[in-house]
């Protein structure tokens, strides 16, 4: 549980960067080697590895080295928490607005507003 909280602190920081978001989006499709992940970006490998490191520290991805190939895998737990929150917020507002629709209908009946 403790580790979980530590990870969560930096998830949004990790995702605030377009390169890192692109890496996560790619990994949603499945694991990929670092070399393939780095290919779309015009940056030196050490710079790219810093992004990988931030994502790993945020608990968003894991990487494993086999021979000379380092492969990255998505760890969806942290994203799920964020997605769940946004989903909850959407449901809360949808329910509120339904209430307001009903109230407006009642009020319009009372005041004959067109």
């Amino acid at each position, binding site marked *: 549980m403790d580790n979980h909280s530590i990870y969560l602190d930096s998830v949004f920081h990790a995702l605030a960067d377009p390169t890192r978001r692109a890496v996560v989006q790619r990994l949603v499709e499945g694991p990929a080697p670092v070399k393939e992940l780095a290919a779309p970006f015009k940056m030196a490998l050490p710079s790219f590895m810093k992004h990988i490191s931030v994502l790993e520290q945020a608990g968003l991805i894991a990487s494993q080295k086999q021979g000379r190939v380092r492969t990255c895998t998505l760890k969806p737990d942290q*994203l799920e*928490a964020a997605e769940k929150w946004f989903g909850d917020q959407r449901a809360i507002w949808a329910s509120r607005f339904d209430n307001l629709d009903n109230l407006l209908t009642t009020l319009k009946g009372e005041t004959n507003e067109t």
Partner: protein
Amino acid sequence: MKPDLRFDFIADMQKSTLTVRREFAAGRQLVWDCYTKAELLDKWYAPKPLTTKTQSMDFRDGGHWHFAMIDPEGTYYWSRTDYQTITPIEGYTAYDGFTDETGVVNPDMPRSHIRQAFTDLDGRTMVEMLVSYNSPEDLQKVIDMGMETGLASTLERLDELLVFLAGESV
């Protein structure tokens, strides 16, 4: 929701903002009243099955709305909206925060900034709300609190996640 009433819910993870747009089948003055009068807010603001109870309302620049949402077990969740600037019937800006029963803002919980805009839409009214947090860390804290209250989840569809990451409607 009535099927012909527009509802947009857009999460922008990069800016730590939420944009919520909703159309209502009523005139702007009436919708404005529902957002700004305590006796009307009490009738709709809490999502079902919760109910709303206003403790105090002072709708003016620098004023506030102190209220609770009450769950079916009788637990009170206190909040306070602090109004910054109000332009009837066009919009207002405010800060939203969690409080205790006396209205003291919980210093451990980040407040969100709210910008509400009301516009005429051919006999209907469009309400747009922009919710922003100071930083990704603030937003994260709010989400962590949601986790602590026991809201666990499983990721069901990865395509939804892709849309979510792209900052589109979730």
